[in-house]
């Protein structure tokens, strides 16, 4: 895999998030370090309460960082002003878990895609050109825009809406994509489609994809590198083969051991 090892596109040193005031503090993310490189597919695996969603929100710039630094494209990330934030969001985007919750149910789905075209400096384009771009994006995800236009979110299925989210990413072409459990609410048979589309985006644009998931099987299937997260800390990380086939930490071993197996025998004697 040809990665630009020169500088990571997203990195963190001592990144911490603490919720609450002096008396009742919750440390959601506890001084973690990471380096993500261009074109990598990374999975951050953790159970609920591990802090992975909080980390995703910090990476996206949706919540503030209590301590530590996040670096973006080699330099220290600056999202202090609104202008800087908007600039940052040209480089990093997200796909969320619940397709129904990702859309504003009072507006037609066109508006979401139109926003993306405008975001990519397309405001001045003619209407036909905008529709052309949107149609192309929908084609990428096997949807016909002509059939979707003027529809409200509740008129579409979950799979269609999740694919629209991916069409959005196709239009925006960010450098980094954070995918928060993108397939957990999708039918098993459509999962492969979603994963395929995301990987295709990576291949065509050298986009870094960071999967946030609790499904270690999915992490193993799709990623180059895996980070295991527990109680706000990265307990283990490495290439997917290293972490899954030869785990070093007890937590990782337990996590893998607690998932039902098919090809190997699932050992039920060890629990917890």
């Amino acid at each position, binding site marked *: 895999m040809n990665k630009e090892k020169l500088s990571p596109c997203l990195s963190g040193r001592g990144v911490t998030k603490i919720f609450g005031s002096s008396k009742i503090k919750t440390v959601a993310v506890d001084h973690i370090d990471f380096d993500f490189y261009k074109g990598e597919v990374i999975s951050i695996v953790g*159970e*609920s309460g591990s802090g992975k969603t909080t980390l995703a929100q910090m990476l996206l710039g949706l919540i503030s960082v209590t301590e530590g630094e996040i670096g973006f494209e080699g330099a220290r990330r600056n999202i202090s002003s609104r202008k800087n934030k908007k600039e940052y969001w040209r480089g990093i985007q997200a796909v969320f878990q619940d397709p129904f919750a990702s859309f504003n149910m009072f507006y037609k789905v066109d508006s979401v895609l139109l926003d993306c075209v405008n975001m990519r400096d397309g405001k001045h384009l003619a209407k036909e050109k905008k529709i052309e771009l949107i149609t192309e994006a929908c084609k990428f995800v*096997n949807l016909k825009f002509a059939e979707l236009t003027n529809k409200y979110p509740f008129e579409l*299925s979950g*799979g269609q809406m999740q694919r629209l989210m991916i069409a959005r990413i196709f239009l925006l072409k960010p450098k980094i994509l954070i995918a928060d459990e993108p397939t957990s609410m999708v*039918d*098993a*048979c*459509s*999962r*492969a*489609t979603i*994963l*395929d589309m995301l990987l295709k985006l990576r291949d065509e644009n050298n986009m870094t994809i960071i999967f946030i998931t*609790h*499904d*270690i*099987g*999915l*992490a*193993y*299937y799709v990623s180059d590198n895996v980070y295991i997260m527990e109680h706000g800390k990265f307990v283990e990380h490495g290439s*997917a083969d290293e972490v*899954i*086939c030869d785990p070093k930490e007890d937590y990782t071993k*337990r*996590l*893998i051991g*607690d*998932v*039902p*197996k*098919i*090809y*190997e025998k*699932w050992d*039920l004697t060890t*629990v*917890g």
Partner: protein
Amino acid sequence: MGKIMLEVNNLNTKYITRSREGIFAVNDVSLKVEEGKSLGIAGESGCGKSTLALSMMGYYLSPLHYISGDIIIDGKNISGMKPEDIRKNILGNEISYIPQAAMNALNPTQKIISLIEDVIHAHNPKAAIKDIHDLARERFELLGLPPEVLKKHAVELSGGMKQRTVIAISTILSPKVLIADEPSSALDVTSQKMVIKMLRSLMEKGLIKSMVFITHELPLLYNVTDDIMVMYAGQIVEKGTAKEMVFDSMHPYSKGLMGSIIVPEAGIRNKKLSVIPGTPPNLKHPPDGCRFAERCKYVKPECTLTNVATKVFGNDRMYRCIYSIEQLKEVYADE
């Protein structure tokens, strides 16, 4: 062939909406579960497996309505019984049901032991409190649950502990059939494993005579149940032993389902996951002929003309497709 604990013959049930429309949720379902065995029902959301679970209990709450078919528990046909009779005599001691997210059903104002007292008194009003406490303690120890839990309230327990407690309470009367609907879906993997262990323990120790396990996660079924049945759009499309179904299924849908399983085991990275485009049909107006036809790769014109009946082959295996076994094997070999 052991004694049959649960037998369902040609069961049909439907939902009736406020605007008086009918949704045919369960269509022509037949199954058998022997003593000492467990059956897994797999399918995606909306296929009707939870509805089937409710229907099998014989206790129909509007908007679910029974249309036709038999449900026989250990020789007793409960399909014609009145709801009051079913509640008194069948639920809890013959057949027990654990719904999805059952752990939220624990009454937060009562101690666990008093919930158990309620359950036992509902069936045996004269049972002595001391006997109930002894039974509860004994059962909890047998199932690996700490007896201190009995004196606690539901809010003091973790999610996994709550779910296991619910399972213990549901089986306290040693029912002949236990129907568990997604008993571990809302839990973390470790608690999930404990729940699975407990269910297997219940079977092994004979505390329940048979089990029906409903879930959309196939690796679980492979490790828990003896047989697996796949449902699609309210019908059974295939049934066989767990091993046969996961590694050698025949129906195009089950094959697709099994082909989309992801496990953290070596070799999975090279697996090509199956894709089935489209969405399940609307059960308000189910299509004529095969319900899977519109999404099937191997569809022929005949598929949409007539309703496809189930066919039996091999060792009590069943599938629903217009193709014969040999034809299917040929088609798959070509790929």
